[in-house]
């Protein structure tokens, strides 16, 4: 069979090709270089004594006995570190009126959540450091604990931060002023109150850091399992008063991140300080219980929302109240308000309606901080919107596909501005809906569902449309005063042997950054991919940039690489033109050879150009200075974000006797613009969906009335395992962004964005014959049985 030639049949055409990741072989051989694997000469180990109380005054700390234990080098309390580290405050200027108390590595006189680190011990081994923790005595005086959101909002109730007026971190309202009229004139109104549990990232490798302060050089090197080395270079420099150029942050292999590893953690800041105090490398790796009580948690929203529709099922208005609890502090430097802000701005995003009102209240409580975790705010916005759409469909007697087809913004109606102020360049809801309908074989699924119901088998079908925020511009954090880059940088060099080395600021956590950057560079330069070496994650060698968060690796990092490669190619061809007595425009590069652009006849290997430029520059015309290293930066312009979209569907079965939900199959049609590596995109989607399914069915950080985390282990906190997960069918629609040459948008959060919503709709669909409804995530068997009034 001879399929027609496509652009992928050209030599060195890598954009759009499913090539494996070059770095994966190393990881498969057990040759990963995770921070937890690192051992430096003279390295010591830190452990932390943690507060058993959710809220208490520290009356006294006695560390005398711990200090004398053989092998202990340092015992440090809050005061010791406060002398060398300036405090931080997790607020952003553009969230007007936002408050949060100053934070230090270790507290001075008060603990605000159970599990907060209070005293640090540095010893010759982690075991000795933990032995020393046993010898420390802390006298606490209990303070009133704020645990649930209702008591946190009660006037005159206990305060998380005594001295503040209330427990409100931030309050915001969006209102276009015509919502009440729209509801008054509506033919139908649907309304629901939702609750979304707290869950956490549970990276398989816990947080890990090795700080190495060299007093002789005045140089701090931090090996840090993080997504964002440049952000931490800036923070360590500013809070410890070390010149930025003398702070080096190295992030090699990271054992899972998902947004969790880009926040400032008290222990990490402490470890840097401990290394400065000792002048020796200090290592800290959280153990699993420490991860559960000190990693950021996420979600934890209660949302009341209503939707108004006309008699034909057109959405007229939405009115939303989102209450979210964020713990005792707002995280630094990205704040804990971003999630709620995205919830109220993403609600209703796929739909064409004008009247919107939303109130956001962000509340402190005595728990660990919540903050940005994969698909920030998206699962909540999506679940609220899509459940209301399903409720409306039921009320109007419409099929879930039909009501969405009727209300989504038409594919030919862009650009559009959402009622919440987001500007959409081009989305493809109609195409995605149509494709999902086919992909699911929707008609057959409904027939099967009806047949099985007659035999008391209760299957549910759910769909959920979503919009995802990717390629964030400075409008995300920069405008709020945070020193978080939205631009990225790349340095490309042609080596004397004719290969290319690419230093780039976007980082790799397993999603395939190295692979796609090498694909783009090889594609643009006309080289074999194996001749491109990509280096990431070291502030000493890679240029400053935003690195990897909020789905910016391909869209922003990829565009940076593309533009840098084009610049290097221009320079190579200029030298080639001098050597070959040609115009640069008459030449091209294919498979590492300079060729005639028209005929593709080979003229000269680029290795020969490199050899001449590096070793025989005397043979080049006078005045020639070959620039075979280029550095290039790229910051997004045009739309503040590259929004993407898609739709998910699922089929599941509810056992109405036990309340267990069995996922049968999951589907997604997704539009991330230009696809660089289809295999990696699909794997991002699958991984993201499974994280979303975990949130939908299993994951919840459960607290006692006194603020103790009740399920802080992998035996108690349920995560998706292979047996419970379905196969996932994937299809794509491609709407490239016109804001970049590459056209790529992000994809890492699309899977997580709509998975919970999809399952919520499907479980409710399964329970429809019983008149039972579920409005809480995770959908546990107990909640299902309760909805069925069987528990």
């Amino acid at each position, binding site marked *: 069979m001879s399929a027609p030639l496509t652009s992928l049949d050209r030599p060195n055409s890598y954009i759009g090709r499913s090539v494996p990741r070059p770095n994966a072989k190393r990881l498969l051989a057990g040759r990963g270089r995770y921070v937890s694997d690192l051992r430096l000469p003279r390295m010591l180990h830190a452990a932390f004594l943690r507060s058993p109380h959710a809220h208490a005054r520290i009356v006294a700390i006695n560390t005398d006995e711990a200090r004398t234990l053989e092998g202990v080098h340092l015992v440090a309390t809050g005061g010791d570190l406060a002398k060398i580290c300036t405090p931080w405050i997790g607020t952003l200027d553009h969230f007007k009126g936002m408050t949060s108390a100053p934070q230090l590595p270790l507290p001075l006189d008060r603990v605000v959540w159970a599990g907060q680190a209070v005293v640090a011990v540095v010893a010759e081994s982690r075991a000795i450091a933990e032995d020393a923790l046993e010898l420390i005595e802390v006298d606490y005086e209990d303070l009133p604990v704020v645990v649930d959101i209702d008591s946190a909002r009660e006037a005159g109730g206990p305060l998380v931060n005594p001295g503040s007026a209330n427990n409100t971190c931030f309050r915001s309202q969006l209102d276009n002023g015509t919502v009440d009229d729209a509801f008054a004139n509506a033919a139908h109104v649907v309304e629901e109150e939702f609750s979304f549990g707290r869950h956490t990232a549970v990276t398989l490798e816990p947080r890990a850091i090795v700080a190495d302060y060299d007093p002789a050089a005045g140089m701090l090197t931090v090996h840090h399992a993080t997504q964002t080395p440049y952000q931490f270079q800036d923070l360590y420099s500013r809070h410890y008063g070390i010149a930025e150029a003398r702070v080096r942050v190295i992030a090699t292999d990271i054992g899972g991140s998902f947004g969790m590893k880009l926040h400032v953690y008290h222990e990490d800041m402490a470890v840097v300080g401990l290394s400065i105090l000792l002048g020796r490398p200090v290592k800290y790796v959280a153990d699993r219980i420490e991860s559960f009580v000190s990693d950021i948690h996420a979600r934890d929203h209660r949302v009341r929302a209503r939707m108004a529709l006309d008699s034909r099922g057109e959405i007229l208005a939405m009115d939303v109240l989102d209450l979210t609890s964020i713990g005792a502090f707002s995280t630094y430097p990205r704040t804990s308000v971003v999630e709620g802000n995205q919830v109220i701005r993403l609600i209703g995003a796929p739909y064409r309606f004008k009247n919107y009102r939303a109130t956001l209240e962000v509340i402190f409580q005595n728990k660990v901080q919540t903050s940005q975790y994969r698909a920030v705010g998206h699962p909540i916005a999506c679940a609220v919107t899509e459940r209301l759409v399903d409720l409306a469909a039921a009320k109007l007697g419409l099929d879930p596909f039909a009501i969405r087809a009727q209300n989504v913004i038409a594919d030919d109606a862009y650009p559009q501005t959402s009622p919440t102020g987001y500007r959409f360049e081009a989305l493809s809801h109609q195409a995605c809906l149509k494709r999902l309908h086919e992909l699911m074989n929707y008609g057959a699924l409904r027939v099967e569902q009806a047949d099985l119901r007659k035999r008391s088998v209760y299957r549910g079908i759910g769909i959920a449309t979503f919009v995802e925020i990717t390629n964030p511009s400075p409008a995300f954090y920069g405008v709020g005063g945070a020193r978080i880059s939205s631009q990225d940088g790349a340095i490309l060099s042609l080596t004397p042997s004719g290969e290319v080395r690419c230093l780039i600021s976007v980082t790799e*956590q397993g999603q395939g950054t190295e692979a796609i950057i090498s694909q783009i560079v090889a594609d643009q330069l006309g080289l074999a991919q194996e001749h491109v070496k990509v280096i990431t994650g070291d502030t000493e060698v890679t240029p400053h940039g935003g690195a990897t968060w909020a789905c910016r690796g391909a869209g922003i990092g990829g565009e940076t690489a593309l533009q840098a490669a084009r610049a290097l190619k221009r320079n190579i061809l200029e030298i080639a033109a001098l050597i070959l007595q040609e115009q640069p425009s008459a030449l091209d590069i294919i498979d590492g050879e300079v060729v005639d652009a028209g005929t593709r006849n080979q003229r000269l290997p680029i290795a020969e150009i490199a050899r001449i430029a590096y070793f025989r520059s005397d043979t080049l015309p006078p005045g020639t200075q070959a620039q075979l290293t280029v550095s290039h930066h790229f910051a997004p312009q045009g739309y503040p974000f590259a929004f993407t979209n898609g739709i998910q569907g699922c089929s599941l079965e509810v056992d109405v006797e036990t309340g267990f939900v069995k996922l049968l199959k999951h589907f997604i049609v997704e539009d991330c613009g230009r696809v660089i590596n289809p295999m990696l995109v699909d794997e991002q989607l699958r991984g993201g969906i499974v994280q979303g399914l975990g949130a939908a069915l299993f994951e919840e950080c459960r607290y006692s009335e006194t603020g103790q985390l009740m399920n802080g282990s992998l035996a108690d906190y349920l995560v998706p395992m292979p047996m419970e997960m379905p*196969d996932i069918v994937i299809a794509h629609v491609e709407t490239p962004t016109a804001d970049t040459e590459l056209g790529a948008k992000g994809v890492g959060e699309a899977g997580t964005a709509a998975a919970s919503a999809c399952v919520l709709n499907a479980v409710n669909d399964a329970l429809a014959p019983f008149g039972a409804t579920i409005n809480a995530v995770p959908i546990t068997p107990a909640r299902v049985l309760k909805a069925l009034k069987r528990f």
Partner: protein
Amino acid sequence: MSGFEDSLLDEVDETVRIRLVVNGRKVVCEVAPRHTLVDCLRDTLELTGTHAGCEMGACGACLVQLDGRAVHSCLVFAVQADGATVNTIEGLTESGVLAELQAEFHRRNALQCGFCTPGMLVNAHELLSRVAQPSREEIRDALSGNYCRCTGYEAIIDAIDTVAKARSENGGAT
């Protein structure tokens, strides 16, 4: 001699000498009674391919072969492994027994961050040595002690399934 008194040494400082065959090589280690096998492999022998994820036998990141069987090295005290044969991801890679699985995992991108991967491979290898042609359901079941947060598992199942089928087509040679 240093100045401190012997009385300062308590039982946790006492070490035990154990002998093992690790990845085909005889090794002798001085370990504290509280040290687990994963501590010994990672810290003493610098075989960091074996990872510690939960330290309670739930996640499977620390699986190694102990006397030919896949075990959680976080649940075995190093002293219990005295006299045993241990194969880690490093040794199993060198010996080539994982080569087909590794190639298929690579081809399908059945890993992302790679932290669970050594444990996944040890488990997959054990499964395929017990059951020549596992169904997808059996593969999913066998992996239910291996937690992966990145992939969603499907590519891993596909990779193992493909290797099992290829082996049976080649007359079951392993």
